[in-house]
């Protein structure tokens, strides 16, 4: 992670904020994570998330949330918006809880 970028929120119940923060950190963007809406596209001005940055964010969230992301769902999914990513992380948490 880069110096000067936002810390990941620590409240476990604020999952969307954690996801938004992780995406901003790995996209090396200076945008305010709170300004990202669910419908913000992943190639918005000042916030372009390429594939490897997206995957690094997933790894960071795995550590942060102590969860294993759903690999098969990941391979089958195309992500267009920030909301898509949040929904995926929530689905991974639900899958983990079912195990």
């Amino acid at each position, binding site marked *: 992670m880069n110096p000067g970028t936002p810390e990941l929120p620590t409240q476990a119940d604020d999952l969307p904020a954690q996801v938004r923060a992780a995406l901003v950190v790995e996209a090396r*963007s200076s945008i305010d994570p709170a300004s990202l809406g669910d419908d913000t596209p992943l*190639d918005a001005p000042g916030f372009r998330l390429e594939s490897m940055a997206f*995957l690094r964010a997933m790894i960071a969230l795995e550590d942060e949330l102590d969860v294993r992301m759903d*690999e098969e769902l990941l391979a089958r999914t195309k992500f*267009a918006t920030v909301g898509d990513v949040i929904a995926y992380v929530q689905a991974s948490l639900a899958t983990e809880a079912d195990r």
Partner: protein
Amino acid sequence: MTTAPPSPPQAAAATSPSTDTDGVPEAWYSILADLPFELPPDLPPPVARADGSVAAQLPLELVRQAHARKADIPIPEEVRERYASWRPTPLRRARGLERHLGTTARIYYKYEGGNASGSHKLNTSIPQAYYYARAGVRRVTTGTGAGQWGTALAMASQMFGIDCTVYMVEISFRQKPYRRVVMNLFGADVHASASDRTEVGRRYRESSEDARGNLALAMAEAIEDAAVTDMSRFCVGSGESYSILHQTVIGIEAERQLDALGERPDIVVASMGAGSNFGGTAFPFLRRTLTGGDGGSGVRCISVEPASCPKLTRGVYAYDVTDFSGVTALEQMYTLGHGFVTPAIHAGGLRYHATSKLVSALYHHGLIEAVAYPQTEVFRSGTLFAQTEGLVPAPESAHAIHAAVVEAERARDEGRSPAILVCVSGHGHFDMSAYDAYLSGQLVDDVVTEDDLARARATLPVVGDVPS
């Protein structure tokens, strides 16, 4: 978000071999854990994907491995069992070569050609196919230069029940027709690149009179193919940190084998394409240097590249693209510029315009050395090795052998007796047209001029202009 249907069960589970894994390393070595510096970050690609969406191009485990800060990364048991079909690979002393040279040096070679792909590439294609299959991917695509990587991925894909499509650089496709047959044998679909199957291939065919193709183009075709085909992913054979990690089984085994002989190499040499053969051989030996375990005696690790594709010895340390797709991240690496047109040398696996960011950083920080040799000298040493050791090396491997010969002759002349380890990364049984050209005096050395280099450097992206 859009999702594809769930994948069917993979064949892998049904075809697990039961093989004795004695002697196969239990873990790969991640040099990232011991680096005294941070790697420069990747930068966003020059252009966004057409629809702005993002898909996971890699299984998460490969991403974890590419950023691993733990030195020892356990090798999955199923991968070790596959490795055990030809590993540990032999380490031999090249006494015939030593006698011929009259050298006081001791030359050891680690031979990686003893599998059906004929090269070290199977060391990473197996774990890659394993992780892709576990992630539910049904098909992989790739670009291949000399054909060794394409063959290795074809084999590994077949092991784990996934389909494989290979784009093979046109000149190699023509020079090595039986490489294609071996890939077909393992079920792969093989196309000469530039092909008419992709936009990037069609553009190249329309705009370029150069019908030879190149690896960056073949990779771009494979990337485009995977992007437009459901549940397909692009696999890369060298250069990525995880592929170098997988190749460290070479150096780990060699270190154990030399330890058993009471030897510790003074010099380690390996050829340089994008970096996985070199990194896989050298990094386990650099571990002692980086962690202070060698008492300051520091092994010399020498990268050997073609004089006609001199990325480390004459390139620049700059951000560049890793292929022609334009949609992959920019990496800081030693590069000639992605527009560099490599002369039609026979070591197809060493024609890549750049080398990996990991190897590049080590060179930048003075931890490894680099040399470059013209192909006529390389083939002379390759032929000498065949005649004295009874093993025909791939042209890529002959580069490393030539460097070992140079070091052994220098030691003889200076009255020293170093132990030299050379990685013979593959056999040259598909390279007879190259050896024929050498033996008949038809082989020539292309000269890369400063003007050639300046023109290629002009193709480097201007980082300040890269959108963030």
